[in-house]
C-alpha cells in the first residue's frame, strides 16, 4: 500500500495573532511553526493504516509545498511514521493561492507516481490552519480524476478501496471509495503520537526529495486584500480562592453559569 499525505507548515499561534504592518500576513516574529493539525492527524492515520497491514512493502509518503524551512515538518513526519518525503519549494507565500497550489501538488503527485507507482490513497487535511480555504485537496483530486470526501473521522481498508466515515449532526455518513482515491481528514480521527527520542534522532537521516513542480501555473482569481485582527475581547481573571477553600466560590459560579 502506498499512501501520500500532504502537509503544510503553519505558524504555531497563541490566543492573539498579530498581523504584519501591511496587513498581508501573520506576523511570525515570535512564533514557532508546526504541521497543520488536521494534517498531523492525516500522517498518524496513514501510519496506523500501514501498521495494521501485513508485509513491509508499504509506504507513507509525505509531501509538502512551502518554504525551504518546511523540511522541518517533513522531518517531524519522519519521526512519527512517515517513510518517504518530498518537498516542493515555494517561496513567497502570498502568491500561492489554492489554485496554484493545487496545480503544483498535482504535478508533484504525478511525478512521485511516475517514479514509485500509484498512490492507493492521498490524504489531505480538511483545511489548512492558516489559510482555511478548503480547496486544495478537492482541486487536486479533481485534476487527478479521483474521488474525494472531506471531513473524514474514520478510515478502514476494504477489499478494493477504503471505507470512510464522516461526522454529521445526526451521526455518521459512510462512504466507500475505490482506490485510487483521496480523503480530507479532520482532527479527532485519531490522537497523533509524539515522536520518540529515537524517532527524532532517526528523522535527521531522512532523505528529502526536492521536486521542481512550482512552475506549473500562476495564481488564480483569489487574492488577499487585507488581514484584520478582530477586536480583542477583554478577559479579566478573577481569582476565586486557593485550594479547597475555593470550592464554594467555584460552585456558586457554576450555578450562576447554569452548568449545575
Amino acid at each position, binding site marked *: 500500500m502506498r499512501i501520500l499525505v500532504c502537509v503544510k507548515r503553519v505558524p504555531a499561534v*497563541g490566543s492573539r495573532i498579530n498581523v504584519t504592518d501591511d496587513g498581508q500576513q501573520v506576523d511570525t516574529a*515570535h*512564533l514557532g511553526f508546526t504541521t497543520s493539525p488536521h494534517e498531523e492527524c492525516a500522517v498518524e492515520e496513514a501510519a496506523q493504516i500501514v501498521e495494521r497491514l501485513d508485509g513491509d512493502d508499504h509506504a507513507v509518503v509525505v509531501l509538502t509545498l512551502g518554504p525551504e524551512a518546511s523540511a522541518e515538518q517533513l522531518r517531524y513526519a519522519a519521526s512519527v511514521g512517515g517513510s518517504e518525503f518530498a518537498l516542493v519549494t515555494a517561496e513567497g507565500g502570498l502568491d500561492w493561492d489554492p489554485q496554484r497550489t493545487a496545480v503544483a501538488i498535482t504535478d508533484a503527485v504525478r511525478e512521485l507516481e511516475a517514479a514509485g507507482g500509484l498512490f492507493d490513497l492521498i490524504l489531505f487535511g480538511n483545511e489548512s490552519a492558516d489559510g482555511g480555504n478548503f480547496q486544495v485537496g478537492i482541486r487536486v483530486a479533481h485534476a487527478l480524476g479521483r474521488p474525494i470526501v472531506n471531513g473524514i473521522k474514520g478510515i478502514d481498508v476494504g477489499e478494493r478501496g477504503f471505507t470512510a466515515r464522516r461526522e454529521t449532526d445526526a451521526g455518521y455518513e459512510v462512504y466507500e471509495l475505490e482506490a485510487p482515491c483521496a480523503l480530507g481528514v479532520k482532527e479527532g480521527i485519531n490522537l497523533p503520537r509524539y515522536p*520518540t527520542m529515537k524517532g527524532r*534522532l532517526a528523522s535527521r537521516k531522512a532523505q528529502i526529495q526536492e521536486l521542481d513542480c512550482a512552475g506549473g501555473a500562476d495564481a488564480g482569481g483569489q487574492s488577499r486584500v487585507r488581514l484584520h485582527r478582530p477586536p480583542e475581547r477583554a478577559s479579566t481573571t478573577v481569582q476565586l480562592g*486557593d485550594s479547597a477553600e475555593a470550592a464554594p466560590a467555584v460552585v456558586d459560579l457554576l450555578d450562576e453559569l447554569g452548568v449545575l
Partner: protein
Amino acid sequence: MSDFPARADCVVIGAGIVGNCLVGHLSDLGWTDIVLLDKGPLPNPGGSTGHASNFIFPVDHSKEIVDLTVDSQHQYEALGLQNTCGGIEVARSPERMEEFRRRMTSATCWGIEAKLLSVDEVVEMVPFIDPDVILGGFYTPSVSAVDSLETGTQMRRRATEAGHLQTFANTEVLDIETVTGANRPRISAVVTDRGRIECDTVAIACGVWSPKLAEMAGATIPLTPAVHQMVDVGPFDALVETNQELAYPIVRDMDTFCYERQSAGSMEVGSYAHRPILHRVEDIPSNEEAALSPTEMPFTPDDFDDQLEQAIELMEFLGDGEIKYAINGLLSLTPDAAPVLGPTPEVENLWSVAAVWVKEGPGVGRLMAEWMTHGYPRMTDPHGSDVTRFYPQDRNVIHIETRADEHFNKTYGIVHPREQWATRRNLTCGPAKARTDDLGAFYFEAGGWERPHWYESNADLVERYGVEGRTHEWDARWWSPITDAEHMHLREHCGLVDISPFQVFEVSGPGVVPYIEKMAVNKCDLPVGRSIYTPVLTADGGFRSDLTIVRLSEDRFRIATGAFDGGRDEYWFRHNLPADGVHFENRTEAVATYGVWGPNAAALLQTLTETDLSQEAFGYGQVRDALLSGIPTQMFRISYVGDAGFEIYCPTSAGLALWDAITQAGRDFELRPVGAGVYGTTGRLEKGYRLMGAELESDYNPVEAGLARPRVKAADFIGKEAYLAAREAPLAAQLSTLRFESLRCAEGYDRFPMGAGNEPVLTPAGERIVDSHGRVSRVTTAGNAPSLGAYLAMAYLPPELAAVGTELSVMYQHEQYPVTVAATGANLALFDPDDSRMKA
C-alpha cells in the same frame, strides 16, 4: 477584589518565585502596605518560574549561593512543599571526578551531607544508568524538588492575611516614575494599565523582563533572556510502576551538561550544552501571543539532538519515550552568572531582585527583605550578587550578551577559581599597556581593567630564586612560578607594580568632614597630607568595605579602593551624600597609579625628584605632591606588600611618561615590573593584610578581623553602635594566619590550596569548626609566602582555637593537610612582623 490603590509604601513588580517570596518576607519584617503586580495571570503569570524544573542541588562552591540555597530549602520544607529525593551528579571524565573531590570539599565546608559513589553504587541507586558510560558519582541526599508555584501562592497569602499585601494580576506596568532626589532620581510612582500608584519604593522581580522595567525608571539591570532547552519524555513503565513523583534521585550528567529528572511516569531532560541562544526582551511574546507561555518559546529541535543522543547513552530506555513537551525555556543570564540583587545605583529606592533560580528564590526573598528593611542583609554577605558590583561598562547589551554567551556552557562546567574571561578584554587599560605588553605581561581582568598578573620578562628570575613549579595542572592553572620569583626580587631589590585599576574617588566641599567621618570607622579629620586606612561598616557593624582615605586639602579627601570593589563603594558613598555641601567625583579614569616597593625603592625614586623621600622627612602614611622627572604626582608612602616604598598617583595622560621615567631610572636599581600576583597574594599574605571579599565580609566585624583600633573616635559613623557593642561582647571568632605543615597529597606530591573560600578548616580529626554565631571556619586566602619558604592561609577561628600553635587541618580537593595557627589578632604578619622594612 479590592479597589486599585492610589498609594502604597512599596510596589513589587513580578509574581514569580522571587517576587512572591519577597512580599512574604517584607510582610514578616513589618512592611504593612505592599502592592504586588504582574501582567500575567496567577498562579502562573508566565515567567521562568512556571516552567522551571524545580529541583535543588544545594552544593556550590560559593558561600553566598549556598547560604541562599540552603535557606530556600528550609523555607520550602517549612511550607511542606519540598520533596527530598536526593541527587546524583555523574562523571564521564577524570576531570569531573576531580571536580567531585572539590565538591566534597565544598560540601564539607558548608556542612551538607554528600558522598562520592562508585559506578556500582550509582547503578544501585539508579538502575537504568549505563555503567559503561560513567566513572562515578557525587551523591547529595538533600537534593530536592519543590513546588515553586504553590510556594509563591502561600507566600502571597501570608502577606495578604497579615493585611499587608494587595495583589493585582493581569496588570501591566507602563511606566515607573521618579522625582529629583537628594543626589539622584528617586522613585515616586508606578503607572499601570489600571491606574497609577504613588509609592516610595519599587522592587523589580520580573526575571527576564527586568531590564525593560528598570529602563522605565532610568536604571539598568544587566541580564539577558537566554534559552534553556528542556523536554519531557515518557511514559516509561519503570517510572510509572514507582507510582511516585520522584522515586529515583535526580541525575545530573555533568560532562554533557544535561539533567534527567523523574516527573511521575516520565522524565524531564534538560540541557545547558546547546549553543547559547540569547533573546532580547522585546522578542519575548506577550501572554496572549505566546503559544504556551511567554517564556516557553518554540523548541528548536536541531539544537537539542546531540543532547538526546547523550541522554540515550546514559539511559538507553529514554530512546523509546515520546517527547510530549519540548520548550526553549527562557531564563536570565547575567554578565558573570551571579544574581542581580540590591539597590540600583541610578535610582534611589529602586531595587533589583533578578536573575534568581528557583533554588534560591525564597532565600533571596528573605535576603532582599532584610536589605530593604535594615539597609544591608543579615543572612549572608551579598557582595557577589550586588547589582552595584557592575561598572557602567558592564551594563551595556553587548557586554551582557557577550559574557552570557561565554559562560552559558559553563553552567555545569568546571570553572577554576582563578578562571579568566576570554571575551570583552582589552577594553580598559592603564596608560603603560604598550610597555607591559612588550614585557610579556600576563593579564588578569580586575574590575574590567587589564592588570598584569606576572611578566614573562621575569622568567629568568625563576631559576635565580630557585622557584619550583606545581605538579598538578589544576594547581598550576592561571598561576606562574614567576610570581614567586618576582616576589623575591622585590624583597631583595625593588619592583614596579601597575595598580591603575585602583578605584579612586574624591569627595570635597564644605560638608566633607562630617560626611567622611560618618562613612569611616577611623578618624579622618587629620592634618592635610595624612592618610587613614579604615573599615567601612554596615549599620549592623559588619564590613561593607575597607579602603584608604587621604586628606588632600582642608575640604577634599581622596578615597582609594580595590578594582573589584569600586562599584559597590561608589554606590555606598554616593548613597550617603548629604543633599548639599559635598561633591563626589569618580577619578579612576583620570588617575594612573603605580607602586614602587622594595629596599631600593626610595633611592630609585629619589633620583627623579627633589622632594626629600627620607623616612624622617616623609614618614609612613603620608602624602606629598612631588615632581617626578618633572611630572606632577602625588606620592603616598604606604605598602600592601610589606616593603618600603610609595604609591604614586599621576594624571593618566602622564602615566606612560612616568612609567618610562621610573623604569629608566630603575636600571641602576635592579627594578623589575612585578605583577598583581605579588601585590594581591604573596606579599599581602606574608604581611597578613586583609582583603575585602575574602577576609572582610559583612558577616564579620573589625574586632574579629583584628582591625579594631584601641580607641573609638568621638564622631558618629555608620555602624558605630554595633561596633561599640562588638568591642564589649565576648569574641566569637578571630582572624588568624595558618601555616601549612605539609602540602604532600596521598599521591606523593605537593598540592596548593586555592583559598577560594570553600576550603574548610577542620580539627586534625576532620571535624568542622563552627563558631558560636554559626559561622564556619574556612580558608579565606591561601598562597605561597616565598620569603618564608612557607605556604600560608588565613581563616577565622573560634577564640579557643585562635592561639598560636594550635594544630588544625585544611581540606583541599577532599584531602586534609595539617596546619598550625601561626599568628592571630591584630598583627597577622609572619614576615617582618615589626614592620622594620617598611620604616627603613
